[in-house]
């Protein structure tokens, strides 16, 4: 028997209600089904309005779900209150713009301590050691602890954001356009770092982006969304080699040819 997947989403429907008497709009996510195996990366590609952000927000339980099921070790949609708060600590989140997601007022050390303090861990030597390890695991020198986010480059700040997402040792990392604001050479460093972390910590990742070439490189499986529908889901090699949808082919054909995937 195969081990249980990290995340199992079954015919998930998310719909924003316009108003009490308004006509029911088309769902933002229209019956999405997919699974993410443990230790793998699932890439989610789609344009604005495709429903990828709604999907992420539903997995983070920030949005109500109309129907369908999410299993994340347990019946994820049944969790409430304190139990949900505790369970959600096992998901780390990294967003697109580190300068918006990192407080400008705190030092890097304070930023990395924050999730641990919020989870009730005590300040002290053990925490300081953990912070130092997080920093070095994410490829940053120890003297960054006293700095603030504005003193860092975009790539360094994104490393801090990744370190913070790992502070509570999550099993699942959700990355929402983590390299879209970065230069190509820095993007390569961050993608390498994510591969290293996936390897060393056995992380599972949900990697959301509009850049199919980035996600095709890093992900094991690929989910392509368009206007709320899942138009493609499969092993990355299969989707890239034989895209079933014209839309996927269009995304793949943009720009330089000779993609060696």
């Amino acid at each position: 028997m195969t081990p249980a997947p990290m995340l199992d989403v079954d015919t998930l429907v998310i719909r924003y209600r316009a108003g009490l008497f308004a006509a029911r709009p088309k769902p933002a996510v229209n019956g999405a089904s997919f699974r993410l195996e443990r230790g793998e990366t699932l890439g989610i590609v789609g344009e604005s309005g495709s429903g990828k952000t709604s999907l992420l927000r539903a997995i983070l339980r920030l949005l109500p779900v109309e129907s369908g099921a999410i299993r994340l070790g347990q019946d994820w949609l049944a969790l409430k209150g304190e139990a949900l708060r505790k369970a959600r600590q096992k998901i780390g989140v990294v967003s697109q713009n580190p300068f918006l997601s990192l407080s400008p007022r705190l030092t890097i050390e304070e930023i990395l301590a924050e999730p641990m303090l919020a989870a009730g861990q005590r300040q002290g030597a053990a925490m300081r050691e953990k912070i130092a390890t997080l920093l070095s695991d994410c490829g940053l020198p120890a003297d960054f602890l006293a700095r603030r986010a504005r003193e860092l480059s975009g790539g360094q700040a994104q490393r801090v954001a990744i370190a913070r997402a790992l502070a509570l040792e999550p099993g699942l990392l959700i990355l929402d356009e983590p390299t879209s604001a970065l230069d190509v050479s820095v993007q390569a460093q961050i993608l390498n770092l994510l591969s290293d972390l996936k390897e060393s910590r056995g992380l599972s990742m949900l990697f959301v982006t509009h850049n199919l070439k980035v996600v095709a490189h890093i992900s094991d499986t690929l989910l392509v969304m368009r206007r709320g529908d899942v138009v493609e889901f499969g092993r990355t090699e299969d989707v890239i080699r034989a895209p079933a949808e014209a839309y996927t082919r269009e995304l793949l054909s943009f720009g330089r040819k000779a993609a060696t995937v």
Partner: protein
Amino acid sequence: MPLLDVRDLSVSIPTPDGDVHAVRSVSLEIERGEIHGVIGESGCGKTMTGMAALGLAPKGARITAERFHFDGEDLRENAARLRGRRIGLISQAPAAALNPVLSIARQLDDVIRAHRDMPRQARRAEALSLLAATGLPDPERVLKSYPHQLSGGMQQRVVIAQALATGADFLIADEPTTALDVSVGAQVLALLRKLVAERGLTVLMITHDMDVIAEACDRATVLYAGRSVETGPVAAVLQSPGHPYTRALLAALPDAAPHGARLAAIEGSIPPPRSAITGCAFAPRCPQAMAVCSAEPPPERRRDAHRWLCHLPEDAA
């Protein structure tokens, strides 16, 4: 004679902590009717080069050049006059370029009225034909809309229509597709190509995206640390890059490596904009650097129309 002829342009901004060298030495020759890509990473001076050509460099900036000419006129004196008459700007964020509280009809009419002496009805007809030329379906409806009622791609088409309304024949497009979805961006690039072919426009395309260069440009110039380090036809620059920086940039792209393999990230970082550079600016990060590289400025290497600055001989590239 190239339409835009730039030779050894530098733009320095004095600050209390010393001069910021935003552009150190950029040379560009842009021929009429081409789309010329300027590619580089943040801080390499590509936007400042465009701003200098528009006469929009920051106050107090020192602009020096051996030549800085647009159609024979010196841009150091005439940039402000040429801007909006012959040189137009298409910026990254169309939503920021449009006024949110005025209808498209009003905003487009303002531009047409400022540049051409036409009666009201003729201006309206002109506005409709400009919107149609940018491929917007239902120009009548767009004219009545406000910016927030349009998608990003539609907004960018309106901005392009505005640039055309001035009668400009040279457009500086600064990351025109970065804020758009890939498929919408591809449509905007196709539109620019069509306008270049139909109206004889010339475009300076500023981008950080090699795919945009491949998709839309005829020739490209690579900028590093405020210097143009390589220039040539797009096929030559992308397929047989001469400068080690261009090679490193292409190798760092996620589709350059086999699936899941480590990417060739470029070690180190760009030189700080206040520092002085002797020799090749890329030498500290270059895997093929020799002793001479950080001591002396690199000579020009050439393969037909493809030129780059490097101490390594041509056949090493």
